């Protein structure tokens, strides 16, 4: 497998597919089905959040003030831009522009890195303050608020799992960058880049909802 030919993206399709087009469409559908499982995976967390919000609105209101919406907003902007750079990378791969693929993937990687740095700052602040999940909660100003630890449980699990997906995405970006730099992608084969794109946009999608729900509730 793999190729370093003068024409970008020449590759034999797998034997059980009729042609490369069929293989591409199958991979794309496979990725969408995987994203379906991701939606259902996160749905449990959104449900837990929704329950806290519906039944303990004052607690949620009190707790969420400890989240910095500016940092959350910055992360939203950064992630959206990373979706744009990722879309540009996919287009470049489709056009066989290996250099641009690498550049835009790098830009995406950097955006993701910024996201994780901001996340790191948020987390370390909270750990320092004792704004921790459930039984670990020890932030004195809110200790009297009933069930406040639950909010931070949901916060940490949701943003934590999301952050894990960002990290995994960063690893995948590096891998695809490497393959792009070897001129593996062109108009006849860009499947991995497109798959990465779908995954990355999904990660962005989840954050599009997490941001207002966690940071902007009033």
């Amino acid at each position, binding site marked *: 497998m793999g190729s370093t030919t003068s024409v970008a993206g020449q590759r034999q399709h*797998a*034997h*059980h*597919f009729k042609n490369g087009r*069929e293989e591409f*469409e*199958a*991979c794309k*559908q*496979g990725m969408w*089905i*995987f994203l*379906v*499982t*991701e*939606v*259902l*995976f*996160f*749905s*449990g*967390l959104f*449900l*837990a959040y929704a*329950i806290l919000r519906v039944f303990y609105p004052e607690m949620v209101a009190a707790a969420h003030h400890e989240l910095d919406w500016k940092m959350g907003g910055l992360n939203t902007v950064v992630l959206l831009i990373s979706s744009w750079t990722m879309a540009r990378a996919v287009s470049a791969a489709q056009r066989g522009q290996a250099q641009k693929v690498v550049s835009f993937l790098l830009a995406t990687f950097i955006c993701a890195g910024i996201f994780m740095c901001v996340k790191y700052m948020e987390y370390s602040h909270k750990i320092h303050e004792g704004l921790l*999940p*459930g*039984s*670990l909660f020890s932030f004195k100003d809110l200790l009297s608020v*009933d*069930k406040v*630890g*639950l909010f931070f*449980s*949901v916060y*940490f*699990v949701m943003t934590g799992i999301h952050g894990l997906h960002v990290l995994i995405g960063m690893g995948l970006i590096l891998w695809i960058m490497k393959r792009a730099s070897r001129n593996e992608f062109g108009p006849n084969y860009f499947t991995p880049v497109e798959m990465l794109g779908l995954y990355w946009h999904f990660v962005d999608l989840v954050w599009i909802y997490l941001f207002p729900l966690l940071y902007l509730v009033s």
Partner: protein
Amino acid sequence: MATSTVQHGDNYINHSQGIMSWLKTLDHKRIGIMYLFSILFFFLVGGIFALLVRLELLAPGMQFMSQDKYNQAFTYHGAIMVFMVIIPLIPAAIGNFVLPMMVGAKDVAFPRWNLASYYVYMTGALVAASTLFMNGVDTGWTFYTPYSIRTNTSAAWVLMGAFIMGFSSILTGLNFIVTVHKLRAPGLSWDRLPLFVWALYATSIIQILATPVLAITLFLLILERTLGIGIFDPKLGGDPVLFQHFFWFYSHPAVYIMVLPAMGVISEVIPVFSRKPIFGYKAIAAATFGIALVSFIVWGHHMFVSGQSAFANYVFSLLTMFVAIPTGVKVFSWLGTLYKGSLRFDAPMLYVYGFLIVFTIGGLTGMFLATVSLDVHLTDTYFVVAHFHYVMVGGTLLGFMAGLHYWFPKFTGKMYKESTATWAALIINIGFNVTFFPQFILGALGMPRRYADYLPQFETLNRLSTVGSWFILLGFLVVAYNLWSALKSGVKAGNNPWGALTLEWQTPSPPPHENFTNDPVVTEGPYEYVGEKALMGVNGAV
């Protein structure tokens, strides 16, 4: 239906040699066989736990284990059987082999992910099983909080194992959906798809939608145990009933992951051994989807006495009753196929007959349990235990046995001894009923489940049930002996010993590495047992 020239000698078994060629295979047939052996191994382990449980219940008082050990025994029995055996059983051990062939494809859509799913399964299974050498687990396979948070056992590792195995299930489902969508042979329209494929397709959709919720549930429970996040822990302000909502949102559809493929096998086997087209093809396909859909909106019937609201009880009870409609459509369609057919009594069909009786009983008793006013008395008694064993063992396992005996000649190119298979089928069917029917009565009399001991008035029925379990063991030993002998020295089976019309039978047994020598083209439905084809004899007719 399709043509294929007979290949000389080259098949998927001898295509390449050595254990690494199996462990690194991308061939769906080999992956299916590996799954088959692994799953049957875990079936043995889970079965041993069952025999231990039944042995302890042979008489009142504790026979040879403590109450704590008993809790562990039934937990391992349940967890192993559910997660390691019954859920992957038909899709992974039979579906992997048969589905691509039935749609005329050379492999599943993503062979590498298929192999990955096997290793993910083994990893999860070994992680969970390793707890047998740690502190075990005693929560019941349902892991209800708050006890599952407090128990000083190795529950977290079992949860982790089940979490990992869930991904295997997802990968299998994902692969099947894309295969059915994208890799069907020319002429294989949706209305010509074999019903086994329909069944696996619907099952795969359930796997995709439901399993991730199990994943997040188990994940949260692991966090609950290790970090005390509090979402399900009443001591920290959480809700243990919420755990049950999360858990059963997956676990109810999961039982349809278990049974739909078995129903698919039944739909496949009946026309062949009645020499008749299936009655109500479209109805069965539609009913399969109906069952899959309804399975997602009824989970609260496991929670009637959990503290769930009365309103939710009404709603879930009513919705649960609806599942009887598509199920009934299927049962009557099968009966309609048998009616005026030339009925055979080969081993696959014996399991089918057993299934029809046993699954119907199981399903009907589900209606008892769906009725809130009855369930309040029957829940957590042996009535429930009997119900789910009737549908899971009587349903899924008998369906699997039918499929195993049906496709055995295709997998191996050998035929087993029919008389031995008949005896085994009879012993299993009878043993099953002797084991579990008394449990309906015990439950109605009030014997609670998951109790290590029972009141003296329950002794006779318990004894009967335990003896029945020994017959089940005997029956499976006979099957194992029969199939193993056939593997070693059975009579050569031809391409199509049953005279079936689906694509996998139009190619040699065992099949070549590429499945078909010529790309199949489909020109008619899979059950056209009319005219000459209805007369095509069974056993060596082609």
